[in-house]
């Protein structure tokens, strides 16, 4: 029994050592977890954009306005950039519209100088799980520091949104990624590994046909699983979509996201000839893309260098678009940019996949 066990051990270990790529990725994974997950989840929140408006009749700053805004501006965690980016609006309606379209995360309205003992009104984007509490505590702290005793009236513009609902949207995107990871592209590698590829490389089939065929089938699967999880998410979190239009818009976003992520994985897969290597690589990308997508934790809490990754991360746009529709009931005007970014990403991935696909055995 021992002899057999040792033989199995030796064989397995030899294979492990013979595959430096997998070793590197095995070690890289926990390090990336530490760096990315640690930073994405525990980062200090900074640069929260907060609109401040002085009620009519507008005069250049009441004492309350000046004192609180100055305090808010200088508020910062130690060794961090300022917590708030203050944007001064003169029109309350414009400020609220900015909040609705996600340009700012909160609107703080100071009472009219004629009724200076009235409460300050604070509107926050409650679809975000973290920033509202940062804004509320920031405003309260500034108020205490300034010595005024006004009340703060808090309005959550999307009502109370639970973390479950916030996170649920991210899980829909995760479903798409998992499907592509298990399916998209792995068939290509399997074909290469098992030599089946030799059978169809001698036919006139074009390499663009091979890649597009793989992407098409992967997209359908990813879309279906995204759709199932979307429905499950609605049932579990109890979110009700406001219009049928929103429902179809979610489907559109799911579809484009599926194309984008599938294309990316297929184009990656076409460079590998070993399932193990592909598996470690895709787990690695899964981590980076999902962590920086803002699914767990708002992007605003990430350090700047990590936020750069989100700019090229299709999952970031997908999460943002889905959250806009599902949690905030926003429309094309808000998610348009996300759709464009996702489309550009998909097309780039397809071109990369087709251009780098090896249509020989070498």
């Amino acid at each position, binding site marked *: 029994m021992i002899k057999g066990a040792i033989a199995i051990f030796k064989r397995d270990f030899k294979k492990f050592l013979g595959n430096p790529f997998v070793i590197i990725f095995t070690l890289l994974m926990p390090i990336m977890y530490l760096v990315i997950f640690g930073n994405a989840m525990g980062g200090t929140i900074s640069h929260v954009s907060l609109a401040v408006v002085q009620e009519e009749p507008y005069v250049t700053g009441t004492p309350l306005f000046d004192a609180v805004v100055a305090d808010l501006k200088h508020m910062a965690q130690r060794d961090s950039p300022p917590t708030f980016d203050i944007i001064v609006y003169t029109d309350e309606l414009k400020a609220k519209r900015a909040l609705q379209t996600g340009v700012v995360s909160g609107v703080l309205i100071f009472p009219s100088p004629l009724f200076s003992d009235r409460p300050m009104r604070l509107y926050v984007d409650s679809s975000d799980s973290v920033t509202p509490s940062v804004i509320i505590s920031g405003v309260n702290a500034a108020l205490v520091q300034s010595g005024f005793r006004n009340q703060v009236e808090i309005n959550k513009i999307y009502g109370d949104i639970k973390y479950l609902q916030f996170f649920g949207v991210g899980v829909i995107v995760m479903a798409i990624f998992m499907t592509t990871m298990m399916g998209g592209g792995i068939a290509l590698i399997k074909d290469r590994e098992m*030599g*089946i590829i*030799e*059978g*169809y490389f*001698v*036919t*006139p089939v074009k390499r663009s046909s091979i890649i597009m065929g793989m992407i098409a089938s992967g997209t359908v699967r990813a879309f279906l699983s995204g759709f199932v999880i979307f429905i499950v998410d609605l049932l579990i979190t109890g979110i009700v979509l406001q219009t049928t239009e929103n429902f179809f818009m979610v489907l559109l976003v799911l579809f484009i996201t599926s194309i984008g992520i599938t294309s990316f994985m297929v184009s990656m897969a076409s460079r590998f000839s070993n399932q193990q290597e592909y598996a470690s690589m895709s787990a690695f990308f899964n981590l980076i893309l999902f962590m920086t997508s803002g699914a767990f934790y708002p992007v605003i809490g990430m350090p700047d260098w990590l936020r750069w990754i989100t700019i090229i991360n299709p999952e970031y746009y997908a999460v943002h678009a889905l959250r806009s529709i599902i949690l905030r009931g926003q429309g094309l005007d808000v998610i348009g940019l996300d759709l464009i970014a996702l489309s550009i990403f998909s097309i780039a991935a397809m071109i990369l996949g087709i251009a780098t696909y090896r249509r020989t*055995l070498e």
Partner: protein
Amino acid sequence: MSTPAERSGWEEDATRNPERGGHCTPEHCVIRIEHLCKTFRDKQRTVTAVDDVTFDVKRGEIFGLLGPNGAGKSTLIRILTTLLSPTSGTAFVGEYEITKDPEQIRRIIGVCPQNSTLDSELTAYDNLEFYGKLEDVDDRILPDRIWELLQMVGLTDRAYMKVQTFSGGMKRKLEIVRAFIHRPLILFLDEPTIGLDPESRREVWQQIETLNAENTTIILTTHYMDEAEKLCGRIAFVNQGRLISLDTMDNLRLLLPAGDLIEIGFDRIDERVLSEIRAHDLVISAEVKDQRLFISARRGSTVLPAILAVFDRYSVPLTTIAIRSPSLEDVFIHLTGKNLSDGLPGGDAEQKGKGRGYGR
């Protein structure tokens, strides 16, 4: 045997003097290989799998590429089927150059690779359909064509069963018919009968001959001598990446001395037996190796009683006795000084590497 009319007249061929290789006219010549080389490099070493090979394949023939394992046959086939690119040299398949027009070449060839490339998770029908679509077979005739092929290999009742449930022979036959679903001009068969039982081999051979009768040029690699002898019009011997010889079967036989081979096993031998046998008029040579006596003799069956009589006279007991005509195997041994592989039908594994005895 394989000497249809169109195959005669090629006796003086290109290989003995490779410079003549490219001179075959396009009407007669379907593949032209010119100084083809292929080297594989990795960190440790460089392997030359194909080493300056030049020859032509003529339209309509069954061409055999023969050689031991690792001789470079499959690499050569893979280069010709556009799966690998040559390190140097070139080749034309049809009228197309392999590195310039791989797409066009893929349209006119059918390939049955050495290892199974069937998708075992799909049914026989689905495998053929998938392939037919990739080969751009007209959708209107594809279903009929698939049933025709399934019938040809007797798998109609298994059409909707997954390939993983098939026996090795069924898989092989399915794969061969798959290769000509689009009626290719040239069919490449890499070791078509490897691992098949004698019955299945005969069926595959029959198929190959049927196809050839439909004017398909067939190039097959094999390390089975009997297969090459049975099917091939011309045979190219490849060893260690080099073309050693290319000729028709009949001409190749001429390389051997006339006569038959007699092989006698014994426990001990007497020097007098040997000298007496060697003295016989019809005996060309007699050599002892590994408890065996190899005799090359004209009209072997006539000589045999006399030889046995000698053994009898000196009371030397025999353990085995065999007589045969020289085969391709012997030609190969003659050319390379070694056996094609172990355990071949008609081959003697023991004499590997030192069996160049009889001809000399």
